[in-house]
């Protein structure tokens, strides 16, 4: 493939994200990373399930959690997963502007999710005095949910970085794998959230 083809978006190959060796390596590397993330989150989930009834006289999960807010957060994160699929759809059709637009929407939904999570945490701390140090349940809760929130924060920073960095470059074989890698990571954040809302909030409400 000549340099000309790399730089001319009209002649990009079908799947620009996996057309180069670097793209293939990034793809495998990210999946390797996600396998490790699975184990990391599993240890946080394991500690949470083991410690969730150790409230030390503080508020229990039934008293704390409100399902309305969690439902709203879930819908926002799930929708942001779909919008990043739309972004990758436009990438495969070599439409850089539409890809940036959908990535932007993904980022905004992510920021909305993060805002709600910060609101939720401050609500627990100010209204209930439920902090990281108040009980084993508190430590396990803030470690697990906070770690997920940290992943969302990192994802947003990553997204803004690649969007700004490549804004005037357009789509090419150099940056297509970068966008694809981000979108896989973002989907994985949603995978973790599915278990967070199931294990932490819904099971917490059931008892």
């Amino acid at each position, binding site marked *: 493939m000549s340099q000309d083809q790399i730089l001319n978006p*009209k*002649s*990009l*190959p*079908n799947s620009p994200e*996996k*057309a180069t060796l670097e793209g293939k390596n990034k*793809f*495998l590397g990210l*999946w*390797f990373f*996600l*396998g*490790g*993330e*699975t*184990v990391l*989150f*599993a*240890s946080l*989930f*394991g*500690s949470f*399930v*083991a*410690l969730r009834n150790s409230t030390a006289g503080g508020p229990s999960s039934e008293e704390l959690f409100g*399902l309305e807010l*969690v*439902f709203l957060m*879930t*819908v926002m994160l*799930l929708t942001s*997963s*779909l919008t990043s*699929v*739309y972004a990758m*759809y436009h990438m*495969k*059709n*070599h439409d850089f502007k539409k890809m940036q637009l959908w990535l932007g929407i993904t980022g905004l939904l992510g920021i909305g999710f993060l805002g709600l999570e910060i609101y939720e945490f401050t609500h627990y701390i100010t209204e209930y005095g439920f902090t990281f140090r108040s009980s084993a349940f508190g430590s396990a809760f803030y470690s697990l949910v906070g770690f997920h929130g940290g992943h969302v924060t990192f994802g947003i920073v990553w997204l803004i970085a690649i969007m700004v960095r490549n804004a005037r470059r357009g789509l090419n074989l150099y940056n297509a794998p970068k966008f694809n890698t981000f979108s*896989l990571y973002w*989907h*994985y954040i*949603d*995978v973790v959230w*599915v*278990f967070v*809302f*199931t294990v932490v909030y*819904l*099971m917490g*409400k*059931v*008892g």
Partner: protein
Amino acid sequence: MTENTNTNNQLTDFHRQKNKEEMKRNVISFAMMIVSTIIAFAVVASGVMDRVFAIFLLFILAVAQVAFQFFYFMHMKEKGHAMPAVMIVAGTWAAFLTTFGLIAAVWW
């Protein structure tokens, strides 16, 4: 554009159509994921089910939703995903042992 039509890895109408169909399947999986989320929240909010059965159902819904995420949104159903499958299956196995170990260590 004319000089591009004779290379075989160009974006053709065929590929555009294929991408469109793939997108349609993804929107359907999104709808399924939203539905399973709504069922999960409804089960807990209404409180109609007994505890053990509710938790069992919540887990089935979570696994189903995650399967849609992996196979459709993250394309694991497509060819060339043997290594990703190895990574995630190995990760899930280690995750199972980790959670099981932690929970067993505290409960017994």
